[in-house]
């Protein structure tokens, strides 16, 4: 067993009644101290995976280890150290923000000061006697995050936490997550269908599509992957001649232009020189970096 793994699933598969396979062979590996971005479009199986990890769904096949313990044998001990928010906020509408927290404070045995602290963190300290059913969606979402923070967890699992948050809220949340990770050493598993949202804070990424993990690794590995995919697009007065001239760069034809794998700017200058010295007019010379978003689309569309 990898000692630094907080969550480790092996061969996790799941199907809802009706027989449609929802997850197959999910091997999640969330390392201690990481912010793990769990990405995938809606309906790809993110929530199902997280529900399995939290024990909300009964595991059908495969194994789940959290903090080095098996979930099925040490559910209660594991849950003590996890704060979570799954899908839509689930809160008691007839209670105030503080009372909602109070219900779970007694369950976790957290201190009263902690309630005030988490309310403060999510900026809901001044809601007073207002009951939750009168809250906006964003407020409910923030309160749910406060609930997740209540037990002072070692692992925070947030399923689409920015749903319902305004842009400022999203930025605040991002800062908060970074802070929790940095200052408290909290391991965070955050799911999202918007890559841009998590790209700026995660250290690790897992990409799920149609119940299968397509990519999993540090963000740097993803960047490497991304770099490998960057291309230089070239359009000249005679693309066929240019194709012959640039043979050593392994060109590819693409509609009205050519593309060659991009390495660095010196490569661009060298190609430009080659083309002009051979009397070709260069109309376009555009290095295009394949960003994560594009990769995400590529990764997923490649399988669809």
């Amino acid at each position, binding site marked *: 067993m990898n000692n630094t793994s907080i969550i480790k699933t092996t061969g996790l598969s799941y199907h809802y009644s009706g027989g449609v396979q929802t997850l197959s062979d999910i091997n999640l590996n969330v390392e201690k101290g990481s912010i793990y971005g769990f990405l995938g479009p809606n309906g790809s199986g993110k929530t199902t995976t997280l529900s399995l990890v939290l024990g*909300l769904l009964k595991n059908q096949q495969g194994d789940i280890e959290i903090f080095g313990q098996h979930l099925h044998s040490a559910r209660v001990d594991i849950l003590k150290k996890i704060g979570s928010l*799954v899908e839509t906020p*689930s809160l*008691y509408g007839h209670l105030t923000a503080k*009372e909602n927290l109070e219900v*779970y404070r007694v*369950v*976790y045995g957290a201190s009263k000061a902690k309630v005030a602290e988490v309310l403060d963190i999510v900026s809901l300290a001044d809601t007073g006697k207002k009951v939750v059913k009168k809250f906006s969606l964003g407020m409910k979402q923030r309160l749910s995050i406060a609930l997740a923070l209540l037990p002072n967890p070692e692992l925070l699992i947030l399923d689409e936490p920015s749903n319902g948050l305004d842009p400022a809220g999203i930025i605040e949340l991002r800062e908060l997550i970074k802070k929790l990770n940095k200052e408290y050493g909290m391991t965070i598993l955050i799911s999202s269908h918007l890559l841009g949202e998590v790209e700026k804070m995660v250290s690790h990424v897992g990409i799920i599509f149609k119940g299968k993990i397509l990519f999993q690794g540090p963000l740097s590995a993803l960047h490497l992957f991304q770099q490998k995919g960057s291309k230089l697009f070239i359009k000249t007065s005679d693309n066929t001649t240019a194709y012959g001239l640039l043979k050593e760069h392994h060109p590819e034809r693409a509609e009205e232009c050519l593309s060659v794998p991009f390495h660095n700017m010196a490569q661009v200058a060298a190609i430009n020189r080659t083309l002009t010295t051979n009397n070709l007019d260069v109309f376009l010379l555009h290095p295009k970096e394949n960003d994560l978003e594009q990769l995400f689309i590529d990764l997923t569309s490649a399988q669809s």
Partner: protein
Amino acid sequence: MKNFLSTHNRALKAEWLKLHHSGMLWFCLAAAAFIPAFHTFVSFFESVGDLSPESGNKMIKMDFEIFTNFFFPVFLVIVMVRLVYMEHRFDTWKLIETQPVSKAAIYFSKWEIAAIISFCCLLTLLVVAFLGGLILQYGRPALGFDQSNVDWGYALQALTRFWIASLCIISIQYCLTVLVKSFALPLSIGLVAIFAGSFAQALGYMNWWPYSATQITSDTYGGAPNGDFLLSHEKISLISSLLFIWLGYQLYRRRSIKKAFLSPIKNLAVAVAVIAVFAFAISVVNKPVILERYNATVIAGEIKSSTPVTQVLLLRSPMMDTILTIPVTTDRFHISTDKEIALGIYLVKAGSQVSRVFMGSKDSIYLSISFNEESPVVKVSGTRAAENDYLVNGKRMDMEILSRHADNVNPSDYADDLIEYHNDGIRMLETFKTSDRIKPANDFIRLRKKLFATQALALADGFYPKVYASYFPNQELEFPEEINSLRASVSINSPELISFPQYRRYVTSVLREKSGNNDSLYFAMMKDSLQDPYTRDVIMYEAALSSVIKIKDSILRNKMMAGILLNMQTQTAKTKLAEANGRANSLHSGKPAFDFTAEALNGKQIKKFDFVSKYVVVEFRLGGCEPCKKESIFFKSLADRYTSPQLAFVSLSLDEDKKSWHKEANLTKENKVMQLFSKDDRKWISEAYGLTKISKFVMIDPKGNIINPQLPNPSEPEFEMILQKEIPLQRFNDN
């Protein structure tokens, strides 16, 4: 289990916190307080039910009974649906389940909250009923709350029983609400189950139905006849509550019926095994019990009375001869006897109170006699608890009704009716159980079966032939075979039935029919056909008594009595008969009764003349006279039973003090007896009606003539016989 124990308290506390602002506790308070508060309020203006004495206990009892009969189960259904629907509505199950708490603790703590609310509700009702009494004490001292001690042990026992009865409703409803994630559906199912239960109860079915449990406890507020803390339906509630908690937990854990109980096969096996174990436990608890005879004959009991009682008498009906005299010390009595006591109905007389008890040798009987002038109550427990409960509460067929529907009915139809009534009676007898599942013993069932046969035969052989003869004068009456088989099952020589009036009526009707209504032949037949001397004497005694009343000619009557007395062996019968004849000799019937003038409770002037065209039975009495009070109770009970517009029961007070009469009469104003205060000169009225003793009872016919100037006391069976003889009324269904 370790997780359950270590996390249960936290889960329970969290559940409790969720009740904030939910309105649940207010709902609980309002539901519980409504009935006692309303009762208190109304009692300021009107007496609701008969409260005094024991006002405190009665108020608590009445409020519990009203609430738990219908409102309480509805309340429980609503509470449970609301508790669970809260989680469905806010989609909070998943949040709860990501808490470090065992799932069993989550499930069970919610059930506990419902059980706590149920308990709080009952406790609130008890407290508000008690406080209502305290308030009434100042507002209406006449209700006597200050003199009434609340029996807290009794009240808390009732509370506990209601609570236990409520648990199964909670558990089933919980199970339903977990399964069906809506508000309206489980609520509707619960309400339908309650209504269905109410109907079934009214028809006497399904006394195990969980939704009726609180209603059954309400109907048996006094507890088990034989003193168990819980009745069997409460034990069933407790057991099935556990079963439904288990079933509900499986549903909660596995989310669907299929996954919880059907697949994989292991779950099905476990579910079947668990249900089988619980079903077995319930069937054991629900199984009727027949009590064994005791190793001695014991009669014991307690008396709650404002006036001291020194002895309890065991009397034999109909001659009221004393079988046992049991001394009473400090309101308790106990006797163990070797005396042979034939199985049958006896009368227990304590002070002025007489009640019936069925028993025999080797029975241990405990009698709780609590009485006041208004409503004496005798509770029989011990080895004959079920038999006596049957005699008081058992549903029986009123076969007498067939004596009113015989005109122009042909023999085979009439026989069919008789057999149907007979068989229904037997079915009800055989299925009878007390509220704590005790069945009457086989000796009792044998006796009652024979009685059913005698009742049917009395109609078939004694009554119907006359009707038949008038409608089909030239035809010979022929009954179908079934009637013959009834005839084979019982004979007039059944001395074991002598204590039952049905049997005595049967014997007399058969002999009367055989003798062709010839009196001397009738008595001769008794002498010849009845072998058992005591049976013979009893039948003769009753027949002779009715002759005493019937025969107006004193010479003829005295001659006949001399002959009958010669053939009798039982001394009591002889003495009683001679006394009755003596009274008859002093009769002056047929003469116009003197007119009297009196005042009714509403101040209206009444004269004897006002009763023209009615039969009038007049009681002459004096306030503060103890024997009068005793006889008044019997007089009242007869008035309650013989209701007819052609008959009036009048109590004419010869008191000097109108105020004290008014006060006393007011207490009994709900009686069927008309309370009057005499306005005539006391001396005149005493002479006019020959009042040599008080109280005295006189019967007047619709023409204003005296039928009987010296009726026996109403406590004597003779009184009722005269009433039945002289006044053509529907016969009251006795046993």
